[in-house]
C-alpha cells in the first residue's frame, strides 16, 4: 500500500491586480501517493500552474496571495512552514521543471555551476564531488559527452538538451516529488516523445512521484496514473486515467475530449466545438463556472456551484447531474 505523500486541501489563491481581484485557484484539492504520476490538465488560465506553485509558495506576493488551504507534505503543512525550512523542501524534496528551459536556466552561468548549486546548498557537497555527480546525472538524462558539456552555457544547448539539463538539476537531490509544469509544450513532437520516455525511465529507476501539468490531453494519456481536470480555478473531475478518457463524467471533460482531432482517426464531419470561451476570473461565480458553455445546462446550474461528489470508485466530479459521453 502506497502512502500519501502530499495532500492538498481547499487551496485558494488570488491575485490582487489594479484591474481587480483574479480568482486564480478556487478550492483545489488532490492527493499524491508515493511513486505515482498525477496529471493536472486544463486550458491556459485555469489555475493549474498557480495551484502547484502555491504549494511551494512560489507565487509572487504581492500581487498573489494564498488565501486558505493546506498542503500537507509528509506531516508538515508547506503553507505554514517557516521559510528556511521550506527552502530545504524546494529543490531537495520537491524538484521542479518548467515549460521554457531557456528562461529558467541562468544564461550567464555554466551548466556545471547551475547544477552544482542545489547539491552544494542542500546536500553540503564539495564542488568537486558535485561535479562528478553532475556528470553522472547528465549521462543519466542522455546528454552526450557530459564531461565536456558541463563547461558550456545554456544557449549552447538545444531546447531538448536544456530540458534534459533541467531534469538533471531537478533530480540532483533525489526528490520525492518531481513537479513538471508543461515541460514539453515548447518542444517539437519528436523531442517531446524523447522527454516523456526519459521521464518514464527515470521514474522506474528512481521511484519519485510526479505531478505533470499540461494542456495536452494526449501526453497525459501515456504518462500518468490519475488525472485532475481543472476549469476556471476549480477542479471539475478527478479520476484514474482510464476513467478520464474511457468514461468521463463531467460535461467539460466530455466536450473537450470530443473537440480533439485524433491522429489515428479520420473524421469527415466537423469537429465538435465548445461554444464560447473560458471565463475571465475577475468574479467568483456563484454558479457552476462551466454553465455558460455547458451543453447539459439546467436551472440548478445557474443557482449554485456544485462541489465535488463521488460517482464511482476514485472518481469524482463537480456537476449536479449524471451525464456520460453517450449523452452528448
Amino acid at each position, binding site marked *: 500500500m502506497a502512502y500519501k505523500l502530499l495532500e492538498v486541501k481547499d487551496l485558494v489563491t488570488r491575485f490582487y491586480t489594479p484591474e481587480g481581484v483574479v480568482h486564480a485557484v478556487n478550492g483545489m484539492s488532490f492527493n499524491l501517493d508515493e511513486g505515482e504520476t498525477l496529471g493536472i490538465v486544463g486550458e*491556459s488560465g485555469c489555475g493549474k500552474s498557480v495551484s502547484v506553485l502555491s504549494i511551494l509558495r512560489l507565487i509572487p506576493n504581492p500581487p498573489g496571495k494564498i488565501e486558505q488551504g493546506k498542503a500537507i507534505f509528509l506531516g508538515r503543512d508547506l503553507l505554514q512552514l517557516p521559510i528556511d525550512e521550506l527552502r530545504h523542501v524546494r529543490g531537495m524534496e520537491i524538484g521542479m521543471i518548467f515549460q521554457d528551459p531557456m528562461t529558467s536556466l541562468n544564461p550567464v552561468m555554466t551548466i556545471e555551476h547551475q547544477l552544482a548549486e542545489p547539491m552544494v546548498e542542500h546536500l553540503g557537497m564539495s564542488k568537486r564531488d558535485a561535479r562528478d555527480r553532475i556528470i553522472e546525472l547528465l549521462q543519466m538524462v542522455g546528454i552526450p559527452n557530459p564531461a565536456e558539456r558541463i563547461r558550456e552555457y545554456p544557449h549552447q544547448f538545444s531546447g531538448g538538451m536544456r530540458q534534459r539539463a533541467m531534469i538533471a538539476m531537478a533530480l540532483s537531490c533525489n526528490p520525492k516529488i518531481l513537479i513538471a509544469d508543461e515541460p514539453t509544450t515548447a518542444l517539437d513532437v519528436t523531442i517531446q516523445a524523447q522527454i516523456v520516455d526519459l521521464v518514464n525511465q527515470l521514474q522506474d529507476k528512481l521511484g519519485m512521484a510526479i505531478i505533470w501539468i499540461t494542456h495536452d490531453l494526449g501526453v497525459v494519456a501515456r504518462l500518468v496514473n490519475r488525472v485532475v481536470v481543472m476549469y476556471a480555478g476549480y477542479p471539475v473531475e478527478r479520476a484514474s486515467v482510464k476513467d478520464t478518457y474511457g468514461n468521463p463524467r463531467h460535461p467539460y471533460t466530455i466536450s473537450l475530449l470530443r473537440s480533439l482531432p485524433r491522429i489515428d482517426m479520420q473524421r469527415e464531419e466537423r469537429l465538435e466545438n465548445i461554444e464560447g*470561451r473560458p471565463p475571465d476570473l475577475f468574479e467568483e461565480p456563484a454558479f457552476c463556472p462551466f454553465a455558460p458553455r455547458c451543453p447539459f445546462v439546467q436551472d440548478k446550474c445557474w443557482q449554485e456551484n456544485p462541489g465535488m461528489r463521488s460517482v464511482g470508485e476514485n472518481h469524482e466530479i463537480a456537476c449536479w447531474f449524471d451525464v456520460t459521453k453517450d449523452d452528448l
Partner: protein
Amino acid sequence: MLVRCYQRRFVIRDVWENRRVKANSNTAKKNNEVIIRVENLKKYFPIERGLFRRQVGAVQAVDGISFEIRRGETLGLVGESGCGKSTTGRTMLRLYEPTEGKVFFGDVEVTALSRNEIRSFRPHMQMIFQDPYASLNPRMTVGDLVGEPLLIHTPMTSNERNEKVSELLELVGMNPRFSVRYPHEFSGGQRQRIGVARALALSPEFVVADEPISALDVSVQAQVVNLLEDLQDKFSFTYLFIAHDLSMVRHIANRVAVMYLGKLVEIAKGKDLYSNPLHPYSQALLSAVPIPDPVIEEKRSRIILTGDVPSPVSPPSGCRFHTRCPIAEKICSEEEPLLRQLEPDHWVACHLA
C-alpha cells in the same frame, strides 16, 4: 502609370463582384485544376559578420522544393520548428523574395512580378498569421483592420466599406457592432476571427494559413478550424495549412506534405500518409504524436528519434535525415534522394522506401 493603376482597381472591383458567382461555379466543377505550382523554390537567409557585413554563410531555410496545389483543396504542410514550412508559405506570397525557383498562380508567374505588380496581385492570395496578438495593430479598430485591404485595393466609398466590414464580421461569427472596438478587447479566438476576416476581405482564391490555431486554447481551436472549413465550403478557397499539430492537419487537409530541414520528404493524400507513411521521418513524426486514449497508448509502439534537428546552416550531406534515420545506409549520406512516386499520388524522397 496612374491610369494603369486606376484601371486595375476597376478590374479588381469587377473580379470582386463576380467572385461569389465564380466561387459557386467552382464548387460545382471541383476539378483537378492546378492553382499553385511551386518549382524548385529556395530561400536562403544570409549570415553576415564583421565590419563590412561580409556574408559568411546562409541559413538554407527552404532548399529546392516543388509541389502543386489544386483548386479548392487544402494542402497541409507539416514539420518540426525550423524545417522551413513558414518560410515556404511566406516566400510563395512574396513576403520574402525567393533566392531561386518559381511560383505560379494559375498562369501568372508570381516570382516574376515587379513590386507594383505584386501589390495589385495580392488580393488573389492572402495570409492568416499565427499569433493573433502580434499580427493586429493595437491602435487600429477592428473596423479599420478589416477595412484596410478594401481601402487599399478597392475604390469603395467609406459607406460601402463599412457595410462590407459588417458583412465580413458576421461571416466569421462576430457581432458587427464590434467594429469600433480595439483588438485588446478580444480573446485569442476572436482575434483570430478578425485575422480571418481581414484575410478574406478581398475574396482571395488562395489563403496561406500559417499555424492559425497554435496560439489558441484547446477548446477554441476547434471553433477556428470549423470556421475555416465552413468558409472553404462557401467560397471554395484553396488553403495551404501550415501546422505542427499533425492531428489537426489530418482533420483539415486533403493532401499533406512533410518537410524536414528545408526539403520535402513526402507528399501524399491525407489518408494515405497517415495510414501508410513511407518515409522514415514521417513514420517517426506520426508515431511521436500522442493519442488521447490510454488504452491505445499502452499498446502503441513508438519510434523515438535520437538527437536534434541539425543546423540548416550546414545541413548533412546526401539525405538530410540520415543523421537521425533508424534505417540509414551508406548511400544515404552520399546521394541526395529525389521525390519519387511510389504509389498513385504518393511521393517520397528516400532511397530505401
